Structure formats: C-alpha cells, structure tokens
C-alpha cells in the first residue's frame, strides 16, 4: 500500500502546466466500544483512507476524490478534477496558499495509544456503564455509554510547494443516562474529547451524566417571563456554534452574516472576548496546519465586546483583500470535500466570576442546562433565534426546581450585549470551549 506522502506527491506530479493542483490524503483507524446492560452493545473497527484533489485552472475549481486509491487511481482522480474544473466559472480568488513552515505539535500524537488493547477498551466501556447504573438509585439504565479512539494521519502537497504531514490521536466518551421516578423519565448526557483514553476523566463524565438526569426529575413548565439566565457550559457551547457560522468570512463575503458591516463596532458586553486558536493544547482542535497546509494561528474575533474580524481560509482572505491573510482556518470535513472556513479551538475567554456568584446575581432566574433545536431554531444570517430549553430555577443563590418545555428567544447581538457575568470555569469538552455565562434578561416562554 503506498504511503500518504507518495499518493499526494503523485497527484502533484500529474499536474499540467498552467494549473494548480493540491492533493489531501488522510487515513484513520478508529475503535468504538459501547456497553448496555452489562454487555458489549457494539464494538466497531473502522479503517479508512482516501485522497481528494483540487485542480484550479484559469481560476476555475474542480474537485474529485477516491477511497483508498492506488497511485494510478490518484492520477485518474487529478484528471477527473481537471474535467470538473472546465465546467465551473472562473474566480480570480481561487488560489492555493504558498508553502509556509508550520511548527510541529508533537503532543497531538500519543505513541502509547496503540498500546491500549481492544479488550481494555471494552472493559472501559463496561466499567463506564456499571458506574452509570450503580451510583444513584434513580439511574438504573443508560441510553448510551460509549468510548472510542482514533489514530489518524494527514498529508498534503501542492504545486505551490506545500508538502506536509502530521499524525494525531484522539479519544472520546459519550454517556446518556435515564433517570426514572414513577412514570417519569429524564435523560442526562455528558461527553469529552481528548488525546488519549486516559485523559477523558470517565468518572467525572459518568457523575455529570447522572446528575444532569436526576436533577430534572419532577420538571414542570414555567410561566412565560423575562428573567436573568445563566447558560451552563454545555448550553453555551451550542450558541458558540451559531456564532462560528456568523464569523465565517465566506458567509460575511456572501451576505450571509449579520456581522458583515460590524467590524470595529462594540457588539457585545465588555466581558465578551471570543478566540479561535489552533495552536493551544487546551482543546482537541489543535493542529500544526489547516486543510490547505496553512499554519494554525490565534485569532481574537471579539475583544471586550468589539468585533475585530473574521475567520479566513485562503480564498476568503484573497477575496477580502486589504492585506488579509488566511487565519489558518481552511478546514475539511474529510478528503471528500474541498476546504472551507471552519474553527479550530473556538472559545469564549475565561471570566473571573465564580459559578456560585453568577447564581447569586441571577436570583429568580433560570440556569439553562440544555438547549435543543439550535441548528434549526437559530438563524446566523439574521441573528434571531428561538430554541427549546430545559434547566433549573435559581432560588436563594442555589439551583432549585427543574423546568422543561420552555423556549428562550432573542437575537445574537442582544444576547451578547446582555452578558453581565462570565464564569471562571472555562473548559473544553470538545474543540468548543466556554465558561458559564450570565445574561441579564431573556424571554423565557412556557405556559
């Protein structure tokens, strides 16, 4: 089997004069183990490999990919991408980035990950499930208990001189519990992504998934009111996803972002500082370079509530002009697609207020523990959103009765401007990180 570097270089060698060619190859080995009722529910092994090729000719872009290709098939894939390029329209900003040296991040690859046997992974899943169903009498069943790990390699080469590779390991855990009291069932979830299975903190994940289900038992629907709201870290993460879309320079350039004309404006509260940083190891989104081979960087999108700019890949930077450079955010879902703007470690900067103090400041309000329907109920173009939520009443500076079947609705600018407290508890559960956030007042619809 040819190695990845060989495949991507073969694509570059197959380029013709007057065209730019870039090939991106990835391979991964993934194991997932889930447990149910004390037994293995599922054990999955995935080995995949593929190459995607971008050809730019006279400003026209074509893309083609193939799963597990031979060197000859890679050459054929370049040919297909070339044919596809002939049918698209020229765009002067379709360019490949010049080669720039990227600093290696050796910590991304845990050599010892390979030492964990399948049996050990199965045992971890079984232990996780046992802890989930034996720690609280009201939680005797799980909906889902899974751990997994992935080892992957990426190689990229282009006619612009890019020729780079790196390897990484990732591990993840997901736990969803069912808490039962009489006829009522509530669910609680937790998850983590880290670089090795031993960094997941499985006990914390289990305890969180239990607590989040149990505390919802007896939930009722609250009356409609405007109240202070504390977004817990899982709920705040979902909103950051909507912000990421509105801060994507492609959406800005194409008239699909409410922030398009707001650079330099004070949009959010002074407590609101939002960062994307592909170089820090706090979150799992770090990488030496992005999906185009551009070195990862740090971009402060909002500082003290003021919008500084957007996340860019090579295309959007060229089109934005004014000396804008790619921020190293040309991301790929897989080899099956060309790069587009995406986040790396995307986080709301840590604040200084302890969680308990946020609760005291939100007396009579609600802690939102979970939001649903964000992908459909939030509009990154208009900034309006209306999402379903569950949570807990805040009474006497503490968490009180559980609440369900409510919605919160506002606009992104209104919500960002309304931030009156940011917790000191920033944490990356995935590549999106946030502390708890207090918003002075929001409409909460129930009965």
């Amino acid at each position, binding site marked *: 089997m040819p190695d990845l570097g060989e495949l991507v270089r073969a694509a570059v060698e197959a380029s013709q004069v007057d065209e730019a060619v870039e090939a991106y190859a990835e391979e991964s080995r993934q194991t997932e183990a889930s447990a*149910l009722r004390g037994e*293995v*529910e*599922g*054990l*999955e*092994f*995935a*080995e*995949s*490999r*593929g190459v995607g090729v971008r050809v730019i000719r006279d400003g026209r*872009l*074509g*893309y*083609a*990919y*193939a*799963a*597990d290709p031979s060197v000859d098939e890679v050459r054929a894939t370049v040919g*297909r991408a070339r*044919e*596809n390029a002939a*049918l*698209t*329209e020229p*765009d002067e900003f379709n360019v490949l980035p010049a080669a720039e040296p990227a600093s290696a991040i050796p910590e991304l690859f845990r050599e010892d990950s390979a030492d964990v046997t399948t049996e050990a992974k199965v045992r971890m899943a079984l232990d996780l499930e046992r802890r989930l169903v034996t720690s609280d009498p009201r939680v005797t*069943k799980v*909906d889902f208990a899974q751990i997994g790990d992935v080892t992957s390699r990426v190689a990229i080469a282009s006619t612009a001189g890019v020729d780079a590779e790196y390897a990484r390991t990732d591990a993840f855990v997901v736990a969803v519990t*069912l808490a039962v009291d009489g006829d009522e*069932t*509530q*669910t609680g979830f937790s998850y983590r992504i880290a670089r090795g299975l031993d960094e997941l903190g499985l006990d914390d994940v289990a305890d969180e998934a239990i607590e989040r289900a149990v505390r919802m038992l007896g939930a009722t*629907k609250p009356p409609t009111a405007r109240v202070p709201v504390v977004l817990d870290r899982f709920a705040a993460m979902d909103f950051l996803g909507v912000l990421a879309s509105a801060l994507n320079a492609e959406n800005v350039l*194409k*008239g*699909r972002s*409410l922030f398009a004309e707001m650079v330099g404006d004070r949009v959010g509260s002074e407590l609101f500082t939002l960062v994307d940083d592909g170089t820090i190891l706090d979150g799992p989104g770090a990488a030496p370079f992005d999906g185009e081979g551009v070195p990862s960087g740090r971009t402060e999108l909002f500082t003290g509530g003021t919008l500084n700019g957007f996340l860019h890949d090579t295309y959007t930077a060229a089109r934005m002009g004014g000396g804008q450079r790619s921020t190293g955010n040309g991301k790929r879902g897989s080899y*099956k697609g*060309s790069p587009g703007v995406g986040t790396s470690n995307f986080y709301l900067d840590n604040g200084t207020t302890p969680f308990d103090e946020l609760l005291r400041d939100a007396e009579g309000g609600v802690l939102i523990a979970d939001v*649903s*329907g964000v*992908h*459909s*109920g939030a*509009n990154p*173009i*208009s900034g*309006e959103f*209306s*999402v*379903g939520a569950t949570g807990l009443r805040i009474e006497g500076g503490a968490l009180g009765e559980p609440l*369900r*079947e*409510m*919605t919160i*609705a*506002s606009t992104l600018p209104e919500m960002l401007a309304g931030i009156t407290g940011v917790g000191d508890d920033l944490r990356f559960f995935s590549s999106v990180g946030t502390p708890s956030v207090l918003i002075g007042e929001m*409409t909460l*619809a129930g009965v």
Partner: protein
Amino acid sequence: MLDRALVDEVLTAARRRGGAFAEVFVEETTGTSIRLDDGKVEELTTGLDRGAGVRVTQGTSYGYAFSNRLDRDALLEAAQAASAALREGEAGSVVDLRTLEGPLTNAVERPASDVPAADKVAWLRALDDAARGFSPEVVQVVGVYGDSLQQRLIATSDGRWVEEDRPRIRLVAQVVAKRDDNIQTGFHGPAACSGVEFIDANTPHDTALVAAGRAVTMLDSVPAPAGEMPVVLAPGMGGVLFHEAVGHPLEADAIDKEASVYRGLIGTKCASELIHGVDDATITNGWGSFSFDDEGTPAQRTVLFTDGVLQAYLYDRLRAEKDGVDSTGNGRRQSYASPPVVRMTNTNILNGASDPAEVLADTANGVYVTALGGGQVNPATGDFVFGVSEGHLIEHGEATTPVRGANLIGRAIEVMSAVDAVADDFDTWEGVCGKDGQSAPVGSGSPTLRISRITVGGTGA
C-alpha cells in the same frame, strides 16, 4: 461486485465464534455534486467511494468492521475483527446464499450518469436566474445539485443475497432576501430516489421560486408571539413533526432501551382518533424508499397508528429477533462505514376528511406554519422542539402577517392527542435525518392539520 465463494468464506470467518448471524455489506457509490453560490458555479465534485463492512451479532450485541479494500485479505481481516466482539463460542454455519428478488421500488427512466455535467450546471444557472428574477430584494442564492448511485450487495449467513442499485437526486435552493437591515432566508430542497426525470417535475425554476417566495415573504414578518395557542400545519409539515416527535420514539432500539415514551403502549390510544400514520418504504421513487433495507429485509409499509391507536414499532433484525417478531425493514445505514440502525423511511400522516380552507377558517387565532426548519426530540421524555422557518399569524380564521423567530415545543403524546382537524391535501417533504452519527434520506408527509394547543416560543407579545 464480489463472487459468492469469497462472500461465503468471509461469512464463515465472521462466524468463527458463532453468534446469531453474520452479514457482509458491499458498496460502490459514484456521485456528482455541484454548488452555485454568489452567482457563480463555484465547484463541481465527483467522487468514487467503495468499501465493505462485516457485522456479527449475538442478541442485541454486535461487532462491526469495515475496509475500503475489497480484496480477500482485507475482507477476512474485517471478519476476524468483527467477530472479536462475541464471547468465545462454537463456530456457526453459513446457509447457501440465495438471491432475493424484490419489486423495483425506484425505477429510473434517465440515469443521472447519462446526463452531461454541463446540463446539470445549466440547471443551477436557471435556478439562480429564477430566484434573482423573483424580486430585487433577493440578494443571495445558493443552489446545490447532487446525484449519486449506490450499488449495494448484502449477504447474510442465513442465506440472503440481495443486490440493489439506489439512485438519488436532489436540487436545493437557499435564498437570502434583504430589506434595509432585515435579512431573511428561504429554503426548498425537493429530492427523490429517481433519475433526472425528477428534474422535469421539480424544475430549477419552480424550486427557486418556492425558496425565494419564502425569503421575501419573511421580510414582512413580525416577531412571533410566545405562549400556548392553536397551530395549523401546512401540508407536509405535520409529517416532519410526526417523524421527529413520534417516529423516533417508535424505533425499536429506543423501546428496547426503555428510552421511549411509547414503550408498552401498543394497542393504546395515544394520539387523536384523526391520526392514521404509516412508515412506508415502498412508495415509488420516494426519497426514503428502497426495495430492500440495508440488512436485506424486503421493504414494507408499516401501519403505526389507526384511529390514534398505536399499532406497531419499527424494527431492524436485532430487536425483532429479541422481541420474537419480524423485522419491519427499518435497518438502514449511511454507508459501508456504519452498521445498520433502526430508522424510518417515508413516514406519513394519511389524509383525513376536512377541507383545508375550512380548517384555517375555523381557527380564530393562532399560528399557521408553512415551513419547518427542522427539529429535535428526546425520545425518552417525548420533549421536542421545531424551528418555524415560515409562519403566519392566524387572525379571525385567516393567515395574515408572517412571523419570524418562532418555534414549536411540546411533548409527543400530548401534542398528537391535541390534533383536532386533519384535511385531505396530503403532500411530502424530503429531509436528511441524523441518528447515532449517521445520516439518511427520509421522506415525511401529511395533509393540513391543526393542533388545538401547543407552546409557541417567540419574542413578540
């Protein structure tokens, strides 16, 4: 795609520790996708994907492994890995593989692969022109065309040999309209398991106008009201809600895990007597249709509700065997890279007897929902939420001012029991459903229907 002797050998290897059955799923998929954005056909992608997955099961436990390579060594290695999930046991046998023939659900007149890519590019140009021509307030258009052909082979140790080609085609228009600072969007994305004759019936022009109409209409919108009120759902939209809020909790994996509000309710009335619901994979050229599911079970039509009484759950092989019933043909997977999960096909609320105009006229005040943006349900609690992408106020029996920022929130059984009118103007809506990290094309459909009371979340008075 593979010869029978090799498949037989792989199945035998997969059964080295026994288990209930072993299965090989082989796929080769080719496809084209074209994206127009910002007035330009900016990208054309063609792909070739292939691979094979091997599954071994024991009760509701399974092992699964896949490979991109289809050679003997790679397949035997996958079989070995998958069988590692089972406890040590005696090797199982493999029954002679017999080809199963099913009715051709998704016939194709003109295969997409016979049409030059330049013609497909021209469809997107026409879509862009039509959307921009609709109104000067249309400021941005995204058009996406996609087709694929998935060739599948499923073989099982209990003797199934099923080959089926699945053609898919979809056209999507996403339109942004702007008036001063007010920006609104509209979406329309018809789809089918069909050849390009589908485009004759769902032209780029018409698709563009539906999406543009939605975006421009929403420019006149006011913030949606908040609170409980009657809601009338336009044709197709009730099906989206039925899929999400009712269909998912009826999937047998949720039932098995005791994570469904419908557990133990077969034969019980748990919806309005006006509700007749089915999951139907046999609809000709339907977006969620097929001849066989991804476990080789023939497609079927499963009646879920009759007069509001729950009739059945949706089953794959694993849960069906556990419950001692037949699979309903709802074992589906995204690709060879994933094991099957229980999931819906085309999920519909059938026509009732009311006149749609009268349903609206009989509603004094409330919200008329003409497009839903998608939703989410917690099957264990039945709590669901839906974003309303196009809706109108109902005032004195008439749909009036458009509303924005609305969502619908409720509990499945309560809301389905609160349906007090079902009309006779059935229509469909094609979507992509996500579950367990896999996505699959699903159809849903319904006539106009009214929910007497449901919570609307919004920012208005």
